[in-house]
Every structure is written in C-alpha cells, then in structure tokens.
C-alpha cells in the first residue's frame, strides 16, 4: 500500500495543515503588530513608552466620557496604575486629580471642548442651529512607573516584555509553520483521489458538477459573513476575532476540500466535463452545428443563380443599413433631410444596375458549370451554348468545348491503340510460330533420316532440344505480353480453391515423382470458396508447381498449404531451392530472372511474372519470400462468405 492511499495519514495531514495555518496566522499577526510598534528597530523602553502612551491617550477619552456623564473619576481609578488630572482651561483651575507627583513612564495630554446648541439667523433669513464652544478641558493621564496594582496596563507591560524577547523567535515559528503547511498541502494534493491499489476514484463531492459546487460554497460563505458583518458593531476587536474564528476555520476546511476536489478532477480528467454549463454548452453547440449544416446544405444545393441573388441581397442589406445610420447621423447634425433621400435614391439606382449585371454573369456561369459537369460525367457530345456570352466567359466556354473534342479524339486514339496492340500480339504470334513449326517438323524429319555421322546426330539432338525450348519461350512470351497488357478475358466465378489445388497436384503427380520431391499438403476440411477464373488460376498453379519441379532440391519436401486467415484464402508453396538463391524476391518476380544464374536449365524466366500478373487480374495478391534457400510463394484471395 502506498503512503498516498493511507486514510489515517490523510486525516493527520489535514489536522496538521489546519494547526500550522492557525499558528502561521497568529504569529504573522503578532509579527505585524510588533513591526507596527517598531519592536525590531527600537529598544524595549521606547517601545513600552510608545504603547503605553497610546493606551493613556485612549484612557483620556474614557475620562472625558466620565466627565460628560458627571461621574466620579477618582473612585474609578483607585485600583489602577493610572494618575490623572482634569483642568478647566478657561479658569485654569484643576477640577479633579489624583496625581501627586509620582514618577511615570508614559503620559498623554488631550484637550476636549464643551458645546451648547444655539439658534441663529442665517444670511438668507432662516432660523438654524449651531454648536457653540463654551468651555475647554485638558485631560492629563500618567502611567505609573512602579505598577503595584494588577490591571490592563500591568498586563500590557508584561506582554510587551515577553513579546520583545520572543520577537525573532516568532518570525522563525511563522516560517516553520509555513513550511509544514506547504508540505502537508502538497501531500494532500498528491494523495487526492487515490484510494487503493493505485486506482484514482472520485468521491461523492467530486461527482457534484464543479460550477454548482462553486456557487454553493460562495453562496453559503457570503451569507455567513454578511450576518457577521451585520452584527460586528456589537463587539470589540478581540470579540470579533473570537466570533470570526469558527467560520474562518470552516472556510479553511471548505476551501481545502474544494481545491483537493479540483485536483482529483484534473487527475481523472473530469474538470471540464463535470460541469452543468459544459453539458449545456455542448448541447447548444450540437444543435447550432446541425442548424448550420442544414442551412449550408440548402445553400450549397441551390443553383448558382439563387446563390448569387441571396449573396447580393445580403450585401445590399448591410449596405443600406450602413447608409441609413450614416444618413441619420448626417441629417441629425446638419438638419438636411433631402440630402439623405437623394443619397439613398442614387444608391438604389446604382445597386439595381450592379444587381442586373451580376445576375447576367451568374446565369452565364451557371451554364458553364452545368456544361462542365456533363462533360466531366463523360457526355462527350455536349456543347455549351456560347451565343449569349461575352468576352472571357465566351472564350472559357469555347475552350471547355474544345477540351471535349480533344477528349473524344484521345479516347478514339486509345481504343485504336488497344486494338492495334491486340492485333500486334496475335500477328507476331502467328509470324513467329509459322517458321517455328517448320523448324520443329524438319528437325523431326531429320531425326528419322539415316545419317552416318555420329556428330551430325548429336547436332540434330541439340537442334531438337533448342527448338522445343524456343517453342516454350515463344509461348510464354506471348502469354506474358497478353497478361501484362491485360489482353486476356477474365471471367470471375465462384471457385473452390481446394478442388483446384487437388486437380493441379494430380496433374503434377508424375512430374514431382520424377524430380524426387515429396509434397506435404495441408488444407481445411470445409471447402474454401474464392472469386477467381479457374483457367487462369490453374495456369498460376501450373507455373508454381513447374518451378518446384525444376528448381527444388532433389529428395526434399515441398509444403503446400491452403489456409483461411482473416477472411482471406492463403495458398502457400514452400520448397528448398536446388540453386543458391542470391537474388531478392522482388528480382525473381521480374521478367527473365531465374534462380539459376548460369541459365542452363529449361524455362523462360517468365513463369513467376505471368503468375503474378494473372493473380492480380483476378483481384488476388501474390508475394514471394526468400529465406536462405527456402523459397516461399504466397497467394491471397478474398474468400466468399455465404
């Protein structure tokens, strides 16, 4: 279990963070107050004097209040470390005092006036009241040097003394508590959302939409503090601090929880998503998009002329609006209304001319556009009517018509060249095969002649062998050219790949035996149906099996697999080559490349190329792989699913 998943640790961290914040606030406040009274710049004596003078000044205000109320002051100050004297400044007579020349450490002297309300007549001749100063008092307050009694002043002196001693420690404490606070809060942020087994999960607070949570928190605390502020005049500073303590603490916990919840939301990537407003915005966006798309669809499907009309009207509307505003302002300033009307009339006239011109151009473009579309679709006989067009538009339409004619002749050319190619292949085939027939026949006849010379017989054998090879070469060449120019008819029907493979293997049974090659055939029990042309596919298998007979090492096995992989029929031919395969698979597929570099075996080097072209004509795929002496041919077809 990781540290960030321990619940107890989390609670402890929360408590610690709270305590550290409390200490931080208190120590910071103390440091602030001490700084205000220059604890860090003056001696203790001066600081004490200054504070006590402040307090004495306040005390003089109380004494003045007592005087107003007519209460006895001497009795009240019997138990305090304060001496005072009140002097009537008019008469210079001391009204009341208990100061008898004792030593003091701080002193404050304040003057207060006594007013009565007086009626008088103002300059305008009204009756009014005003305060009239009738007497002034001076209140002197002395703080005793030797404080014998226990009161606010003695306590204050003691606190000042302690505070002065601790003034640097307090800064230190503030820093430590700040460090503790940062550390615990960081831990809490890291641990937020982690429950068990490394998973991050949202609790019920994290599931409340963020905007609602924020509004709720803000609302409650605004209400609480409004009430506190409303009644705050009932309390002094200390009382207010006590009253604020509880809601502030609660606020601290709430804000901490809120921040931690945001941390969890960020971790689970729900910060934006889990918002009511986000959901609303998303819905609004969706509908706006649909509406916009519909409008755009309608607009883009309108004829060019209507599109132009809408666009022009929109432009005119904006223009008029603009002119009306300008005109209104102009006439407002110069009070010349007819000017505005004249401008608007001129504008309408000019716009009407522009409108007609734009409409005319749009009609021309519409004709060119629809003509172009028809040509693009292959309507080669179509001609765009250029009678009512002018200038560049006319030339554009005419060149479109010319393209059409060019296209027509290009297609005719193409058809002609295709036909020519087909005829060429057939004629060349005939012209080569006719002399070849004579050669084959006369070599055969020569063989039957009685020839004395043994050498001559050997030469005839060579002629015989080579003429047969030439015949095979010519046939393959014809096939290759037909197949690679696509000059073969392909009739794709539903074929059974297994049946064809069996048929092909039966044809090659004897040949494979003669070459001492054993075949290992693996095929699925159910039939594999593919879309192919049986005759052509047989030719492919024919070529591949012929290759095995010609190029596979004697006394080895050839593996022939028919498999179904991912809705594809895969036919694999694998064998060990008799010759070193120092060519790449890509090269082998090229025309006239053979596995034996010395080229002394039969074969034209066209078999694989023909096979690949044939497979591709049937929408299949053929690939070769060479791994050392292992030769692998892979044919792939889509299977038909019934």
């Amino acid at each position: 279990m990781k540290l960030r998943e321990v619940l107890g640790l989390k609670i402890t961290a929360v408590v610690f963070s709270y305590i550290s914040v409390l200490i931080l606030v208190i120590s910071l406040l103390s440091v602030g107050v001490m700084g205000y009274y220059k604890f860090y710049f003056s001696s203790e004596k001066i600081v004490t004097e200054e504070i006590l003078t402040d307090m004495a000044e306040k005390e003089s205000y109380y004494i003045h209040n007592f005087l107003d109320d007519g209460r006895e002051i001497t009795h009240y100050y019997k138990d305090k470390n304060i001496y005072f004297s009140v002097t009537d400044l008019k008469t210079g007579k001391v009204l009341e005092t208990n100061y008898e020349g004792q030593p003091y450490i701080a002193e404050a002297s304040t003057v207060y006036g006594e007013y009565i309300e007086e009626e008088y007549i103002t300059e305008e001749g009204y009756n009014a009241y005003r305060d009239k100063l009738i007497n002034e008092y001076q209140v002197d307050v002395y703080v005793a040097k030797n404080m014998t009694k226990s009161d606010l002043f003695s306590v204050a002196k003691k606190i000042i003394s302690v505070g002065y001693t601790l003034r640097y420690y307090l800064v230190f404490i503030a820093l430590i508590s700040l460090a503790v606070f940062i550390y615990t809060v960081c831990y809490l942020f890291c641990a937020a959302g982690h429950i068990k087994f490394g998973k991050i999960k949202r609790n019920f607070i994290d599931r409340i939409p963020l905007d609602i949570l924020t509004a709720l928190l803000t609302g409650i605390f605004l209400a609480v503090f409004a009430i506190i502020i409303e009644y705050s005049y009932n309390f002094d500073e200390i009382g207010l601090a006590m009253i604020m303590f509880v809601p502030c603490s609660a606020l601290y916990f709430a804000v901490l929880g809120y921040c931690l919840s945001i941390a969890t939301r960020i971790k689970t990537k729900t910060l934006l998503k889990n918002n009511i407003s986000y959901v609303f915005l998303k819905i609004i966006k969706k509908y706006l998009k649909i509406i916009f798309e519909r409008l755009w669809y309608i607009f883009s499907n309108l004829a060019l002329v209507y599109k132009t009309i809408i666009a022009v009207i929109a432009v005119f509307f904006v223009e008029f609006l603009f002119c009306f505003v300008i005109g209104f302002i102009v006439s407002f300033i110069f009070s010349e209304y007819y000017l505005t009307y004249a401008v608007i009339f001129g504008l309408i006239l000019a716009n009407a001319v522009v409108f007609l011109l734009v409409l005319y151009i749009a009609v021309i473009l519409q004709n060119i556009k629809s003509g172009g579309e028809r040509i693009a679709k292959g309507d080669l006989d179509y001609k765009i009517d250029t009678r009512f067009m002018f200038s560049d538009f006319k030339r554009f339409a005419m060149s479109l018509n010319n393209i059409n004619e060019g296209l027509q002749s290009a297609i005719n050319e193409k058809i002609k060249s295709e036909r020519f190619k087909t005829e060429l292949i057939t004629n060349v085939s005939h012209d080569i095969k006719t002399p070849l027939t004579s050669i084959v026949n006369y070599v055969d006849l020569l063989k039957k002649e009685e020839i004395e010379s043994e050498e001559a017989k050997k030469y005839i054998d060579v002629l015989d062998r080579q003429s047969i090879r030439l015949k095979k070469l010519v046939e393959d060449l014809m096939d290759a050219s037909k197949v690679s120019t696509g000059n073969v008819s392909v009739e794709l029907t539903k074929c059974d790949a297994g049946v064809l493979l069996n048929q092909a293997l039966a044809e090659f049974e004897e040949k494979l035996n003669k070459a001492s090659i054993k075949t290992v055939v693996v095929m699925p029990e159910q039939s594999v149906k593919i879309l192919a042309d049986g005759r052509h596919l047989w030719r492919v298998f024919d070529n591949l099996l012929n290759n095995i007979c010609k190029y596979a090492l004697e006394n080895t096995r050839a593996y022939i697999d028919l498999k179904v992989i991912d809705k594809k029929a895969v036919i694999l031919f694998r064998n060990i080559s008799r010759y070193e395969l120092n060519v790449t698979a890509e090269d082998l597929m090229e025309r006239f490349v053979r596995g034996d570099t010395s080229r002394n075996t039969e074969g034209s080097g066209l078999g694989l190329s023909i096979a690949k072209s044939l497979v591709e004509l049937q929408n299949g795929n053929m690939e070769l792989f060479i791994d050392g002496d292992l030769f692998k041919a892979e044919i792939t077809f889509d299977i038909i699913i019934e």
Partner: protein
Amino acid sequence: MNTILICDDEKDIVNALKIYLEAEGYNTVLAYNGLEAVEKVRENNIELCLMDIMMPLCDGITAMAKIREFSNIPIILLTAKSENTDKILGLNVGADDYVTKPFNPVELMARVRSQLRRYTKLGGSKTEKSDSYIIGNIELNDNSKQVMVDGEIISLTPTEFEILKLLMQNSGTVLSPSEIYRRVWNDEAYGGEGTVAVHIRHIREKIEINPAEPRYLKVVWAHGYKMEKDGAK
C-alpha cells in the same frame, strides 16, 4: 488409301506434312490458300482436310464454312492462335479438331488417324445400344466392361472404368471430385478428392491423344470434370 488435303500458305509446312502423311501411307492433295482448298475438295475425293486459319485470299474459317456447304469430311484446323476463344469459334463453325502451331507431328498423325477412323468406320453405324455409351471416338460397353477408343480396346482399372462410365452417363455436366467420389466409392469424400483427380489424369492419359489438351474428358478448373457432349459437333 485415304486422300488428305493439306492447306497452308507456308510451303515448307505443307511439304513437311506431305512427308509425314505419305510416310503413314496416305495420299495427299496440296493447296496454298482457302479458295484453292475449296476447289480441291470439290474436285477430288478428299476424306480429311488439314487447314491453316491465317491465309491470304480466303482464310481457313471462311474456306471451312464453304466446304461445309457440300461436304461433311473431317477438318482439322492448324492454328497459331492459341486463345481459347479462337478454338471455340473454330469448333462452332464446323471443325472436328484443331492443333496449335508449333504442333508435334506425332500428335497430329494420331489425330488424323482418329478422325479418319471415326469418319470411315464408325461414321455410318452409330447405333447406340442400351448398355453402351458412345461419345466421339470413345465407346464404353457396360456389359463387357470394355472401352474402345478409335476402335482399339483400352485397358482401364475397375475404378477408372466406373469413373469414366459416370462421366459418360452425365456428359455435358460438370461433376465435382467429391460428387464423383461419393457415387463411385459409395462413401463420403473426406479428403478423397485428390484420389479422384489422380484417377482422372490416368484415364485422360489412356483415352486422349494429348492429355494436356484433352478432347473429350475436360478439366473444369476449380470445379470438377466433364465429358464433352459427343465431341465437337
């Protein structure tokens, strides 16, 4: 002996064919274009015609169509066109057989023999008995369990005989290997299709002149096998 017309625009080929045919004991008449061929067939008592397709003045197909107007002698086409569509066209117009150039002389002689035998001996007496099936030059007798090709008895194994009989009974229709296995072996074909294919190749080697280009027992690649319905015609 039988008289054979040789028609090709290539004199060397005509000459070679003349040598081969006369070595076999046939009389020959020579022609070097289509028009000449039609004339010669009309004038002489010709019993078989070897005809090239691509010739000046009048090509082989046209000449053959003209000959067919007055004669039903066997015609073997010699063609350099090896496209399947050309072969089918030739047979539809009225050829009895074809060889593609460059042809093997031995194979051509065999085809000539086969056609002549069919035309002279079997031609008239094509009476089909209930227990025998005749397709082209192939005659299968179910009673005597004998198969005759060009009048010669061919030895087939019992399985081969059964397969051939099944195919001849259903001539013109394609039978799949599993179907053949089921009906000949009376068993479900679990991997027995390969066996059928091998047997059929053996039959083809026995009854066909060129097993790679069968005349009667056709391989319908990726589907099965079929016996042609009574030869070309």
